[in-house]
Each structure stands twice: as C-alpha cells, then as structure tokens.
C-alpha cells in the first residue's frame, strides 16, 4: 500500500469527524479492554508471566543467529524448504516463483500482517493470480479495497450494516432477498462462500505466530480455523514469517501463548492453536505436498543494531492499540500504513524511514497505558522518544521549533528566566485576568482553537516567595 503517514494530521482530523468510526471504536473499552482485564484477573501470576515472556523474547533476540539456523535445520529435516528474504522484494519474488512454478491460479491467504508489510496481494495479483483473504475481517477489508485498521481485528472500523451491504454487493450470485440481519447469518454466508474457495485453492499462504527452533514448527493461532484450512487444503503451503518470530523451545512458545490470547482478545486460548511441521508425510491422512517457509528480515536486523530491538519483542496481540487513547480516538487507518497504535508508531518509522513518519511517534500523550498492558513489556514510550530524538530537526512547525529553542536558551539561565517570566507573566495576567481566560492567544492557536487558556494569577511563585523570605506579607 502507498503510505499515507505524511498526512497523519489530516488523516486524524478526518477520522475524528467520522461518527461511524467513533461508534465502532466506542466498543473497545467494554469489549477487548474489559475482556483482557477479566482474563488477566483469572491468572494471578499474569505479571510474572509478562516478565517471563519478555525474558524469552530478549534471550531469543540476543541469540537470533543461533536459533534461526537451528530452526532452519529442523524445518528442513521435517521436509520444509527454507527461503531467506532480506527485503520485501526478495520475499515477494520467492513467493511468486513458488506459485508460478506450481501453476497456481488461486491463492488462499491466512491472516498475515507481514504480507501487508510487503504488499504481497497486490504483487501476486499483478502476475495474474487470484488471492482471497480467508480471515473474516481480512476478507471484509479485501472486498472493500481497504487495509486492516487493527492488528488482530482488521475490520474493527466496520459496523454490521457495512458488512451486510458489502456482502449484498460482492456476493451478487446469491439470492438478493436473503436474510442477513444477524451476525450469525453473515458469518454463515462468509463460511459458505469461503469454503468453496478453499477447496479450489492451489496454494495456501499463512503467517506464523511463532517459529519453534526446537522442532522446526510454525505455530499458528486463529479463532476461525481459516489458517488451518489455508495450510492443509491446498497442495502447497507457504509460511511467511519475519526473523523475530523465532522462539527457542515449545515450552517457551507455551509461555508466550499464555500471554498472547489473554492480551489480545481476553481468551485463555484461541480456538485453534496449530503446530505445522513440514509437508504431509506418507502416513499423514492430509496436509500439503510442499511446505515452504519464507523468513523475512526487511529492516529488522537494522532495528536490532540501532537500539530499537525491544520493539521486536512484539507478539502482535494488539493490546497497546486497544488501550491507547490516541488509537481509540482516531482508529488505525489514520496512522497511514500497516501497523497502527503505539507499536505502529515505533515500527513504521523503521520500515518507511523516520522522515516519512515522524508524526507517528510524536502523536502520543505518553500516558504509558501501552507499556502497562504489553505482554512482553516493550518500553513503547522510550522507543517513541528515540524516534523523536532522531527526527527532532524536522519535526513540528518551524515556529514550534523556534519557540522550543528560545525556551531552552532561557530555561538554562535561571536569572534571565526569572526576570523574563516575571515580565511576561505580569503582562499576560493583566490582559487575561478580567475574563479569567484567553479565548484566543497569538502563537497559541494550537491550544485556543478548542480550549480556553487560563490566565495566570499575576506574579510568579518565585516572586512571591522572595517577598515572603524578606518578610513582605502576601
């Protein structure tokens, strides 16, 4: 997708004016947020688990070379083929090559944010392949020509009415006056339509939640079983995963799974947790004839090198989005690229370049809720601050940068600061006190466009205090 990160401010304004979006996002506090809280409350050791999960991720990321090659050995021994892809182009090319070599025409897709990251669908379609998303939310955004607005709930921005209208438009071959008035009816229709496509698909492409070095398995968690159908029904299965998905052992994966679903949807476990190890063996009743695993770097090694490695702990639960006041206000599309919310604000500048996305790490009140809920304790505000440091020279308006520079000059000189503020505050107070507030202030429109600015009381505290020390009554 073409990034729209540079127009973040306009995107956000548009999103704030969208009443339908507000209504859709309004379900978060009583939905995913409340569900996570309830799931956490059922596990007294949840905070300890978060620490254990973090430690597993940090250990793995510090020894990535070891575990990646161990995984590759095990997976190859199980009959899978490993393809290393340095960037999006290499990943797309190798996947397309496998598809074309097998004479594929129809591709079943499991949900994969990395496929969004490398814009895989558009590329395969440009080669004449037909691709269908099989996760219901992904299917919805696909038939609308949209992109996911949430890591785990891609169609969170849509209402039931939207879905009904889209199905009537897109499933034109079905009886026009069928009843689609309930969520159950919509799900049943999607299941029926998708089931036929699954049976016809030549290739299945899925992501992976984890790659287990101990066994060479890809672990896939879903609630719809669509990942399993994508992996097992077509003759060829391609796993697309990034280097950070590695975990050392099945026991480590179990620890991470204990925090993943609880943080994401508030489930103790997802409905399906599948371990996919190589292609079908002779004794197996089913499974793909070929299994390929594409392991993508796409800038992640550079993130590890450049002090942003903690972001690679992420297990894509979406909790930071659900709890973020900014995400709750503007939704995912306003962020302008694949990853939204606090984790998107940290990842996107790494993928696109900070000059393309400096608003994202800047547009945070640093309330810290994201860090409080992150199952792997990613220091999201510190990482956003790191991006702010790297984009300081170009971020914000020239006026804002000048004001900050002037303030910084003065604040480092206490005598000058106290003298200057005494004067400034006396003036501001004289102007503002009759009304108590300013409805408009030159150079402060950012504040006064939507808020009154309280007038200062008069003199500075330092002035008053100095007088008190000299015995002057206040």
């Amino acid at each position, binding site marked *: 997708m073409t990034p729209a990160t540079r127009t973040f401010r306009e995107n*956000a*304004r548009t999103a*704030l004016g969208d009443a339908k979006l507000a209504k859709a996002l309004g379900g978060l*506090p009583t939905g995913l947020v409340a569900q996570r809280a309830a799931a956490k409350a059922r596990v007294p050791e949840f905070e300890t688990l978060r620490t254990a999960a973090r430690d597993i991720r940090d250990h793995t990321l510090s020894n990535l070379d070891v575990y990646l090659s161990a995984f590759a050995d095990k997976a190859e021994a199980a009959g899978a083929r490993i393809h290393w892809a340095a960037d999006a182009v290499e990943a797309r090319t190798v996947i397309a090559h496998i598809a074309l070599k097998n004479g594929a025409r129809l591709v079943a897709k499991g949900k994969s944010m990395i496929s969004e990251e490398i814009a895989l669908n558009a590329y395969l379609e440009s080669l004449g392949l037909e691709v269908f998303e099989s996760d219901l939310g992904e299917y919805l955004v696909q038939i609308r020509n949209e992109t996911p607005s949430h890591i785990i709930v891609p169609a969170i921005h849509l209402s039931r009415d939207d879905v009904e209208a889209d199905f009537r438009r897109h499933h034109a071959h079905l009886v026009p006056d069928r009843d689609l008035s309930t969520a159950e009816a919509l799900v049943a229709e999607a299941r029926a339509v998708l089931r036929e496509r699954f049976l016809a698909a030549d290739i299945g492409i899925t992501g992976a939640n984890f790659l287990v070095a101990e066994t060479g398995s890809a672990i896939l968690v879903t609630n719809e079983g669509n990942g399993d159908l994508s992996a097992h029904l077509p003759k060829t299965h391609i796993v697309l995963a990034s280097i950070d998905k590695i975990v050392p052992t099945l026991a480590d994966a179990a620890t991470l799974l204990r925090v993943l679903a609880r943080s994401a949807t508030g489930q103790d476990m997802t409905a399906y947790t599948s371990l996919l190890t190589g292609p079908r063996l002779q004794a197996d009743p089913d499974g793909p004839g070929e299994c390929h695993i594409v392991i993508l770097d796409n800038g992640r090694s550079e993130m590890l090198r450049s002090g942003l490695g903690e972001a690679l702990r992420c297990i894509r639960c979406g909790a930071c989005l659900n709890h973020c*006041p900014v995400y*709750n*206000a*503007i939704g995912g599309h306003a962020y302008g690229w694949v990853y939204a919310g606090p984790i998107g604000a940290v990842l996107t500048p790494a993928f696109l370049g900070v000059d393309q996305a400096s608003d994202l790490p*800047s547009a*945070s*009140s*640093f*309330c*810290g*809720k994201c*860090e409080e809920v992150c199952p792997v304790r990613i220091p999201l505000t510190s990482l956003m*601050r790191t*991006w*702010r*440091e*790297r*984009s*300081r020279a170009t*971020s*914000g308006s020239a006026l*804002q940068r000048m004001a*900050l520079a002037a*303030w*910084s000059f*003065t*604040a*480092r000189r*206490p005598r000058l*600061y*106290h003298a200057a*503020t005494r004067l400034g*505050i006396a003036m501001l107070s004289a102007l503002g*006190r*009759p009304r*108590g*507030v300013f409805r408009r202030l030159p150079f*402060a429109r*950012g*504040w006064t*466009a*939507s*808020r*009154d*600015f*309280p007038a*200062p*009381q*008069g*003199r*500075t*505290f*330092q002035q*008053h*205090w*100095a007088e008190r020390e000299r015995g002057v009554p206040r």
Partner: protein
Amino acid sequence: MQPRVGLFVTCLVDLMRPSIGFAAARLIEDAGCAVTVPTGQTCCGQPAYNAGDRKTARELALQTIRAFGDCDFVVAPSGSCAAMLRLHYPALFKGQGETELEAKAFAERVHELTDFLANVRRKTETSARFVGRVVHHDACAGLRELGIKNAPRRLLSSVAGLELVEAPETTACCGFGGLFSVKYPEVSTAIADRRIADLTSTAPDLVTAGDLGCLMHLAGRLHRTGNPLPCRHVAEVLAGEMAAPPIAGRAGDTAP
C-alpha cells in the same frame, strides 16, 4: 531538627498558579518540615526530553540537581515533573560515571507532594474543610511511573465534608501530554472530551488532580464548552487554599 525540603515548584505552578506552590509549602510545613525554594530552578526539562532534545534535558537536569544540593528531600506538586526527576534524570546520565551516581542520589530524595505527605511523613489527616463531591483525576506519569494512586485519595478523604467519588475509567488519560496538546490539538481535545464525560458522570462539584498541566487542559476545555465544573489542584483543597478562583475561573469566582 526539621528535615529541609526543597520545593520544586514546577514551571507551570511558578508561572500560572502560585497559589498551588503556597498550598504545597504549607502542607510540607504542616508535616513538620522546613521549606526552601532554590532560585536556581526553572523547569525540569521534560518538554525538551519528550521533544527529543536530550542535550537541553541533560543541562536542565544538572541545573536542577545542583540547585537542590543541600536539601534532604525534593518535593514537587506534580507527578509528571517528579517522575522526570526521579526516573528520567538517572536514565539521562546512564553510563556517565559520577554524574549518573549524582543523578541517582538526587532521584532517591525526590517525591511527588501527596506521596511525600502520606508515605514519607505518614501524614494522612488534614485540617481542611470542603463540602461537596470531588472526583480525582490521576495524571498518567504519577499514576503509572510513580504508582501514586492511594496517597491523594487518603488525604482527600480526610478533608471535612468532602465526599470522594471515583470515575468509571479511573486510569484514563486526559489527553494533555505536554507539547502533544498543542502539536495535535484535535486529538488531544477528543481525548479530553472523553475524559470529561467520564469524570462528569459522577456528578462532581469539583475536579482535582495532582498536575497543573492536566488541570489547565481539562479546565480550558470545560470552560470553552460552557461547563461550569471547577478544577483545582489537590494541594489547594488539602491546604484549604481556596481564596483564588478555580483554574480558568474569573477573579471573584471563588466558589468552590
């Protein structure tokens, strides 16, 4: 001998609302301490730090650390500034030998006001009086970085006539976020509106918080939308320093 407490006034209180500074000083004195206000202090440096300017942040950190060199404690009427002094100053000098040690030694002496009163001085009774329902907004840095939740509530509960009520979304951000509030005003205001709806659902007579930034933002939005609900810093209520009009109030508007 009384402990010597350096009042870190915070730049907002110094410039905008000295009455909070006096309220804080009174409360610290009533807790058996001597208050000093070093003139070498200006701002904690957080605006620079969060704007990505570590150099200025470091210089302001050193300036602050040295200004309070002779104090047993450093107390700030702001969880946000206290967190900057307590957590981020040592982080700013990480790996810098003696300066890091100096920042750490300083950080250990720093407390947010209500935390200092309730947990260091073990003072949970006040002699103040306020008749009405009060909803307390937890500023994020104090709440999540310093874990300040019970201290202001215990102190407020001791105020005669005061009924403390809890908002449903008790840990929600108000949307202020320092420079965020002017860089992304529409988003900041949308978050404020949600917070205000939550706070006002408790039908309060007064909103309190421990940070003037959040309060100016909330009061400024309330005032703009014609909502007369007053806002005050928790120190004003605890010290009974209610002579000044509430934040965004007009001279003469003293109630409550």
